């Protein structure tokens, strides 16, 4: 039915199966959309946010998807600027994942601001003393970059590509993509950093506060570094999940190994810096503000030393060591495990830097302020996940996302019955028997 739209040389599932999948994920999407409209029409009283928790589940989800979407800018930087040409086999998918992550982040912010019709105020009446203004600027501009990077993929659809102008535009955009990729890397460096900087400058919150280098707290650099390290791991994990679902090999092993190795070394250097930062904060910064490490990890039902260990060791040191060890990295199961641990680690880091910061008592008369999201918050956080799955499904079906797919999964030859029928047809169309070649 839609075979004319499917890329050449690849096989896709029947349309009914595709529609069924879309329907299931679409139902989850509708649940999220319903909760979104509740938040917009009834207000933020639909959430469990309060005076303690101005930042809650949405901001965690925002920071997490932005970190996970970092694979797009870093892979683009490696391919277009540093010249790791082998990454051309996965760059399309990294761009798609980045596009989903950043559009999700903007969607969540549109719900979080309460009055999305006034979103433009942040540009028109910009508070030029706020790191969040820089985040808003860079986030919007970088989303524009990702859209520009995604457009040629859409235009490469089999039918669209037949239009000469579209074909020429795709070709020209590919030729000049390095300019956009460089701009994207510049913008990403600043907004990833400023998201971390927001936590690091909170001098009234000793759990988050960090020492500075000029005007930038260490968290500025750690956030950028972690996005560049963990983002590619998320790209690898989503690729693996896609391969499992489609039961196909979609990206060459050499490309996977290269990206895993780079991600591993970035992670190793990041987690080393993060551990040094944590030790300095625990032994010098926090005590200078009247707190001991124990104050941040006791007398509450959730946040114990386990969360520190899970973030640094389970989600940092272990996946980093796994990814930099060639023997472990080349085992697909262990590689998948390492990427799962890495994704868990960076999400936990963002949780700690958003929600544990809010929970820790600051004044001597304060107690731990715990927070549990409302179902509307959960539904609107699941919404981008459903949206992402749908966009991946549609893009995978109709666009040439994986350049090696046809080569890695050659189509089976026609069945004998069809082949026989073809032969008969050819015989019917052929010259009548008994004719000389010239007559034929």
């Amino acid at each position, binding site marked *: 039915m839609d075979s004319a739209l499917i890329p050449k040389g690849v096989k896709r599932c029947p349309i009914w199966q595709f529609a069924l999948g879309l329907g299931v994920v679409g139902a989850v999407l509708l649940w999220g959309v319903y909760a979104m409209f509740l938040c917009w029409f009834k207000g933020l009283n639909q959430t469990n946010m309060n005076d303690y928790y101005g930042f809650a589940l949405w901001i965690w989800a925002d920071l997490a998807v932005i970190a996970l979407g970092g694979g797009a800018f870093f892979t683009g930087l490696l391919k277009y600027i540093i010249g790791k040409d082998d990454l051309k086999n996965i760059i399309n998918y990294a761009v798609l994942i980045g596009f989903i992550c950043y559009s999700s982040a903007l969607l969540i912010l549109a719900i979080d601001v309460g009055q999305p019709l006034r979103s433009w105020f942040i*540009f*028109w*009446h*910009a508070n*030029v*003393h706020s790191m969040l*203004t*820089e985040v808003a*600027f*860079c986030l919007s*501009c970088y989303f*524009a*970059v990702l859209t*520009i990077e995604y457009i040629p993929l859409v235009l*490469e659809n089999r039918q669209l*590509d*037949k239009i*000469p*102008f579209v*074909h*020429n*535009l795709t*070709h*020209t*955009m590919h030729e*000049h993509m390095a*300019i*956009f990729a460089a*701009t994207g890397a*510049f*913008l990403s460096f600043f907004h990833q950093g400023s998201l971390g900087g927001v936590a690091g400058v909170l001098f009234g919150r000793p759990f988050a506060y960090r020492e500075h280098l000029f005007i930038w707290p260490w968290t500025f650099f750690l956030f950028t570094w972690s996005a560049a390290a963990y983002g590619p791991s998320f790209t690898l994990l989503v690729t693996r999940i896609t391969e499992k679902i489609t039961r196909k090999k979609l990206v060459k092993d050499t490309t996977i190994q290269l990206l895993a190795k780079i991600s591993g070394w970035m992670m190793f250097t990041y987690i080393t810096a993060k551990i040094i930062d944590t030790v300095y904060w625990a032994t010098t910064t926090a005590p200078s503000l009247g707190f001991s490490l124990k104050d941040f990890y006791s007398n509450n039902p959730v946040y114990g030393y386990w969360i520190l260990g899970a973030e640094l060791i389970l989600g940092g040191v272990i996946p980093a060591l796994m990814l930099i060890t060639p023997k472990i990295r080349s085992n697909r199961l262990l590689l998948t495990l390492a990427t799962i641990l890495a994704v868990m680690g960076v999400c936990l880091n963002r949780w700690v830097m958003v929600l544990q910061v809010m929970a820790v008592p600051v004044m001597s008369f304060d107690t731990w302020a715990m927070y549990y999201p409302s179902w509307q918050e959960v539904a609107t956080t699941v919404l981008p996940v459903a949206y992402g799955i749908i966009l991946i499904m549609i893009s995978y079906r109709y666009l040439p996302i994986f350049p090696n797919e046809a080569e890695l999964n050659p189509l089976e030859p026609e069945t004998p019955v069809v082949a026989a029928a073809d032969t008969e047809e050819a015989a019917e169309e052929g010259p009548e028997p008994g004719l000389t070649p010239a007559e034929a």
Partner: protein
Amino acid sequence: MFPFSFEWIWDMSHIIFMGGLWYALSILGAGMTFCIIKAILATANGKGGHHH
């Protein structure tokens, strides 16, 4: 947002923040304009008949 807005002040914060925003937007806008014009010219010259 613009120097002609009533709340604009010629200080370092405005110049860095808004200058950075307009710089990034200019690169993206100019880049896309260039690509579109080049594609129009190529199409007018009869290129693009060969498909992938």
